[in-house]
C-alpha cells in the first residue's frame, strides 16, 4: 500500500485478480482492440471452434462421397478414440502403458463373441429369459438346438467398456507399486499375454484364424452392412463423446489428482490423494475407452484376429499421443488423425506420383516404390524427433504464460489481507488435551536409528518449533507423523485418535497438512492447480460428477477456485498475478509460498512447516514470518522446523531440540538457548564448557 511507484494500470491488479479467476488474462483488453474475435470470452471461443470442427467433420461424407476415403477417415477416428484413452493413462496419470492394445482386444472380442456364431452352446430352458430380451436366439440344428448370441451393438459398446475396465483394474492392481520403466514393462507383458491367450483358446476366439461373421450394428432394423459412412458417424460421435469426457475429467478434481500423481506421487499422497484408487481409476477409464472402441472396430471389420492387437498397435497409439501432445485432448486427436490419414492417403498418393515419375525417367526402382510400407519407419522417426526436439507435441497440454513485467512484479508487495480465512484451524474445542501427541516414537532405516523414543505434545492453537543440527531427525519426525515412513514403535495420536502408520492421504484427511524441506510441488501445473489439488480431500466430485457437471459440481468448483484465490491472497501480491503460471517458472521464494498455500487449502487443523524460510533473503523471511504469525492468530496450530533462530524466537512459544534422533531439550526459546546440551549439540563440547 505504500508503494507509490507502482504504475497506475497495475494498481487495481490485486483486486481484479482476487475477483476474477482469469487473473492472468490481463492482456485481454489489449487483444480485444486488435481482433474482434477476441471479444468473445475464451471458453465460448473454444466451444465455438469445437462445434465448427464437429460440423465440418459431420459434413465430410456428404461433401466428399468417396467410400474409400470415408473408410480411411472412420479408421482414423477409431485410432483417435484409442489415443484419447491412452492419453488418460499416460498423459494425465503419467502411467506409461505399453500394452494398451490388450484392452482394445478385450473390447473387440467381447463384441465379436457376443454377436457371432463362434460360441454356440446347446439350448436349455435357462436361455429363455435372454431370448425374451433379444440377446440370444434359438437356432434349430440337427443334433439339438443351439444358442446364437446376437447382443445388440449399442448395448455391447458400454458393456465392452465395462468389461475392459474390469481388466484394466485387474492388470493395473499388481503394477501400483511400480514406477515408470517397470510399469511399462509389466504392461508390455500383459499386452503380450492377451493376444497369445486369444490365439491359444480357439474354442472361444477361433484362434489364429480369427473370429468371423461378426454381426454389423443395426439401427431401427436397418443394418450398417459394409458401407463406411455409418461407421464414420458412429466413430465421430464416439470421439466427440470421449473428448468431452476427457476434457471434463481433466479440469475436475479427478483430473487434477491424476496430474498430481504424474508430477509427484509422494506429494500427491501427502495432499490427500488416494493413489491406489486414483491410479486404478485411470487404468479403468483408459481401458474403458479402448473397450468401447474395440466394439466399433470389430463391428466395422466384422472380423478379428490376434495380430490386430499386438505390440506394434500399442506403440502406434503411443506414437499418436506423443506426436499430438502428451496430456492434450485436442493434441492426441489431431495427432492420431494426421498419422492415420498420412498412412492411408498421403503415402498412397505420394507413392503414385513417385511411380509415375519413375516410369517417366525409366527408373525401375522409383516406379515400384511403395511408401505406405515405410509407415513404421516414419513412426520411429517421429518418436525420436519429437522426443529430441518437441517433447510437448504438436499441441502442448499446457500453454506457457508470458512473464510478468517489472511493473507488475513490483506492484504492491505487501503482507496481504488475512483478517480471516474461512474454516482455518477450526477445532472441536470441547475436547481437552493436546492436539498432537507423540509417544516414544522410534524410526529405523536399516541399522540407523533416525528417531529414538521421541515424545512430544502440541497444544491446540500453539506454535511449536523443532530445531536441531542437520541429520538430527527433524524431517523424519514429520515423515513419520504424515505416514511417509513407517515407524518401528511408538504411537502418534491426533485429536485423540491413533494415526500411527496410517497412509499419508488419511493423515491429511484427518487435518494434518505439511510442506517439504526440498519443495515437492507439481512443477508442470499452474499455481492455481497446485492449490486446488491441496483441496482434494475437502471436495467431493467423483468421476461421475465430473462427467455430468451438474450445477452442484459447478458450484463446488467455483467455490474451490474462489477459496484458492482467497488463500493465495495470504501472500499479498506475490502469487495472485501468477495464478495461471506454471510453478516451474516461479522463483524459489514463491515456490515456498505456493507450497504453504497448497497445505492451507486442505483446511488443516495442524500445519507442519519444514524449513519454510529456507533460501529466502532477510526481507522475505521477515515477510513470511509475519504471515505465519497471522495464520497462528487466526487459530491454526503450527509445528515448524527452522534453522533461523530469530524466526523461531519470534514465532514459537515452545521449542523442542533433537540431536541424533533423540529429544535433548524442550522449553521456551529463551530456555532452550541457554541449555548446555543444546549448545553442545550445535557448537561442540568445548563451546559448552566455555
Amino acid at each position: 500500500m505504500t508503494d507509490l511507484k507502482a504504475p497506475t494500470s497495475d494498481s487495481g491488479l490485486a483486486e481484479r485478480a482476487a475477483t476474477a479467476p482469469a487473473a492472468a488474462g490481463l492482456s485481454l483488453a489489449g487483444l480485444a482492440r486488435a481482433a474482434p474475435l477476441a471479444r468473445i470470452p475464451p471458453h465460448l471461443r473454444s466451444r465455438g471452434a469445437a462445434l465448427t470442427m464437429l460440423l465440418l467433420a459431420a459434413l465430410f461424407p456428404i461433401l466428399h462421397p468417396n467410400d474409400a476415403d470415408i473408410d480411411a477417415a472412420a479408421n482414423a477416428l477409431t485410432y483417435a478414440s484409442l489415443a484419447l484413452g491412452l492419453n488418460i493413462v499416460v498423459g494425465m496419470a503419467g502411467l506409461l502403458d505399453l500394452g494398451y492394445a490388450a484392452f482394445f482386444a478385450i473390447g473387440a472380442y467381447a463384441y465379436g463373441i457376443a454377436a457371432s456364431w463362434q460360441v454356440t452352446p446347446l439350448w436349455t430352458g435357462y436361455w429363455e429369459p435372454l431370448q425374451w430380451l433379444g440377446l440370444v436366439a434359438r437356432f434349430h440344428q440337427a443334433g439339438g438346438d443351439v444358442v446364437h448370441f446376437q447382443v445388440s451393438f449399442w448395448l455391447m459398446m458400454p458393456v465392452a467398456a465395462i468389461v475392459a475396465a474390469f481388466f484394466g483394474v485387474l492388470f493395473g492392481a499388481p503394477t501400483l507399486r511400480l514406477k515408470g520403466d517397470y510399469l511399462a514393462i509389466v504392461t508390455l507383458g500383459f499386452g503380450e499375454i492377451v493376444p497369445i491367450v486369444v490365439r491359444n483358446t480357439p474354442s472361444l476366439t477361433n484362434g489364429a484364424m480369427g473370429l468371423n461373421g461378426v454381426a454389423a450394428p443395426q439401427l431401427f432394423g436397418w443394418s450398417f452392412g459394409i458401407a463406411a459412412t455409418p461407421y464414420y458417424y458412429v466413430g465421430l460421435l464416439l470421439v466427440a463423446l470421449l473428448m468431452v469426457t476427457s476434457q471434463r475429467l481433466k479440469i475436475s478434481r479427478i483430473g487434477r489428482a491424476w496430474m498430481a500423481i504424474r508430477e509427484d506421487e509422494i506429494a500427491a499422497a501427502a495432499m490427500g490423494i488416494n493413489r491406489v484408487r486414483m491410479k486404478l481409476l485411470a487404468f479403468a477409464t483408459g481401458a474403458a475407452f479402448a473397450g468401447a472402441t474395440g466394439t466399433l472396430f470389430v463391428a466395422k471389420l466384422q472380423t478379428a484376429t490376434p495380430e490386430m492387437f499386438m505390440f506394434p498397435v500399442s506403440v502406434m497409439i503411443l506414437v499418436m499421443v506423443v506426436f499430438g501432445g502428451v496430456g492434450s485432448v485436442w493434441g492426441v486427436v489431431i495427432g492420431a488423425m494426421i498419422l492415420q490419414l498420412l498412412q492411408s492417403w498421403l503415402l498412397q498418393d505420394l507413392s503414385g506420383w513417385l511411380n509415375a515419375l519413375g516410369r517417366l525417367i525409366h527408373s525401375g526402382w522409383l516406379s515400384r516404390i511403395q511408401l505406405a510400407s515405410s509407415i513404421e519407419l516414419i513412426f520411429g522417426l517421429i518418436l525420436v524427433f519429437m522426443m529430441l526436439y518437441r517433447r510437448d507435441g504438436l499441441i502442448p497440454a499446457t500453454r506457457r504464460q508470458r512473464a510478468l513485467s517489472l511493473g507488475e512484479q513490483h506492484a504492491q508487495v505487501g503482507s496481504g489481507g488475512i483478517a480471516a480465512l474461512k474454516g482455518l484451524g477450526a477445532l472441536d474445542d470441547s475436547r481437552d488435551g493436546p492436539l498432537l501427541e507423540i509417544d516414544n516414537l522410534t524410526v529405523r532405516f536399516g541399522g540407523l536409528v533416525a528417531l529414538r523414543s521421541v515424545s512430544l505434545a502440541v497444544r491446540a492453537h500453539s506454535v511449536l518449533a523443532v530445531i536441531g543440527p542437520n541429520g538430527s531427525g527433524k524431517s523424519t519426525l514429520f515423515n513419520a507423523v504424515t505416514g511417509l515412513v513407517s515407524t518401528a514403535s511408538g504411537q502418534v495420536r491426533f485429536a485423540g485418535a491413533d494415526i500411527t502408520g496410517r497412509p499419508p492421504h488419511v493423515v491429511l484427511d484427518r487435518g494434518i497438512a505439511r510442506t517439504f524441506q526440498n519443495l515437492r510441488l507439481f512443477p508442470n501445473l499452474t499455481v492455481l492447480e497446485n492449490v486446488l489439488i491441496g483441496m482434494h480431500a475437502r471436495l467431493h466430485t467423483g468421476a461421475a460428477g465430473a462427467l455430468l457437471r451438474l450445477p452442484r459440481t459447478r458450484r463446488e468448483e467455483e467455490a474451490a477456485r474462489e477459496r484458492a484465490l482467497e488463500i493465495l491472497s495470504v501472500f499479498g501480491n506475490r502469487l495472485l498475478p501468477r495464478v495461471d503460471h506454471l510453478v516451474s517458472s516461479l522463483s524459489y521464494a514463491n515456490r515456498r509460498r505456493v507450497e504453504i498455500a497448497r497445505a492451507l487449502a486442505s483446511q488443516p487443523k495442524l500445519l507442519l512447516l519444514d524449513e519454510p524460510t529456507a533460501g529466502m533473503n532477510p526481507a522475505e523471511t521477515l515477510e513470511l514470518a509475519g504471515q505465519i504469525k497471522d495464520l497462528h492468530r487466526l487459530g491454526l496450530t503450527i509445528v515448524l522446523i527452522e534453522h533461523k533462530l530469530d524466526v523461531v524466537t519470534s514465532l514459537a512459544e515452545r521449542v523442542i531440540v533433537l540431536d541424533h534422533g533423540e529429544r535433548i531439550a524442550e522449553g521456551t526459546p529463551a530456555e532452550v538457548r541457554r541449555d548446555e546440551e543444546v549448545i553442545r549439540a550445535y557448537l561442540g563440547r568445548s563451546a559448552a564448557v566455555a
Partner: protein
Amino acid sequence: MTIDPVLLQQIINGLSLGAMYSLLALGFTLVYGILELINFAHFNVFMVGSFVGMWALELFGLSGQSITLSGFTLVGVLLFAFAATMLVSGVLGVAIERLALRPLRNVSGPAAMITTIGVSYILFNVILLTVGAGSLNFPNPLPRMRWVVGGAVLELRSVLIWGVSLVLMLGLHLFVSHTRLGKAMRATAQDAEAARMMGVDVDRVVVTAFFLGSALAGAAALIFGLYYNFTSFLIGYTAGLRAFTAAVLGGIGSVTGAMLGGIIIGLVESLGGHFFEVRWADVIIFSILILVLVFAPSGLLGRATPSRS
C-alpha cells in the same frame, strides 16, 4: 539314476538358448545399471547384428549349410565373424547413444525410453525395407560333429556356443572387476553424481556400457544364426523380450544376475515346451517377468529396488 534322454536333450537345448539370452541380457543390464534406462533399441541392435554376422560369413563365400570348414580355416573364419559382428554392433550401440540418447540424458520421465522404442522401430524397418520380409538362410560352416551323451545328442554348435559365451562373460567380468574403466563403471552405477565429482568421465563410461552391451548382443546374434540357421527382421523382438526377462529375473543391473537369469529363461523355454505345450511357453515367460517385477523387483541377485521417485 538315469535321466530321461528327451529331458536331457531339452536341458542341452535350454543351456544353448540360455547362453544366448545371457549375452543379450548383459546389454540390458549394463545400460540399466548406469543410466537406469530400459533400452528397447537393444532388441534390434541384436537383429541387425545377425545380418552383419551373416554378411561377414558370406564374405568367405559361405552360404547355406552345404559348405563346411574345418581346422584353422574354421577357427579363423569364426574369429573374424565374431570380431566383425561385435565391432559393428558395438559401434551401432555407441551411435545410438551419441545421437539419440545423450541429448536426453538429463530429461526426467519416460522420454529416453520412448526414444529407444523409436530407434528400435527405425532399425527394424530399415532392415525390413532393405533386406525384405522373408527369412534368410544363415551360413553355417560348422562340421556335422555330434556325440551321443546319455541318449541325448550333443552337437558341435552347442559346445561352441557354450565356449564362446563362457569366454565373453569371463572377459566382461574381468573387465568390470579389474580394469580402471571397469571400476569407473561400477562407481557410476552406484552414484553417477559422486563418480563425476571424483573425476570419472561419465560420458566415457556410458559409451563403454553401450559398446560392450551392443557387442555382446552382436555375439548373441551370431550365435542365434549358427544355432537356428536363419535370420529375419523379426528375430529381435521375441529374443530381446526373453533376454530382458532374464535380466529382470537375475536382478537388473547385476552382471552375474543377467548370466544366471539367461540360463534360467533358456531352460524355462525348452523345458516349458517339454512339460507344457510349446504355445504356452511365452505366457510362462511373460508371467515370470510380471511376477518378478511385482513381487521381487530386485530379482535374484539385484541390489536396489527399481522404484525411483
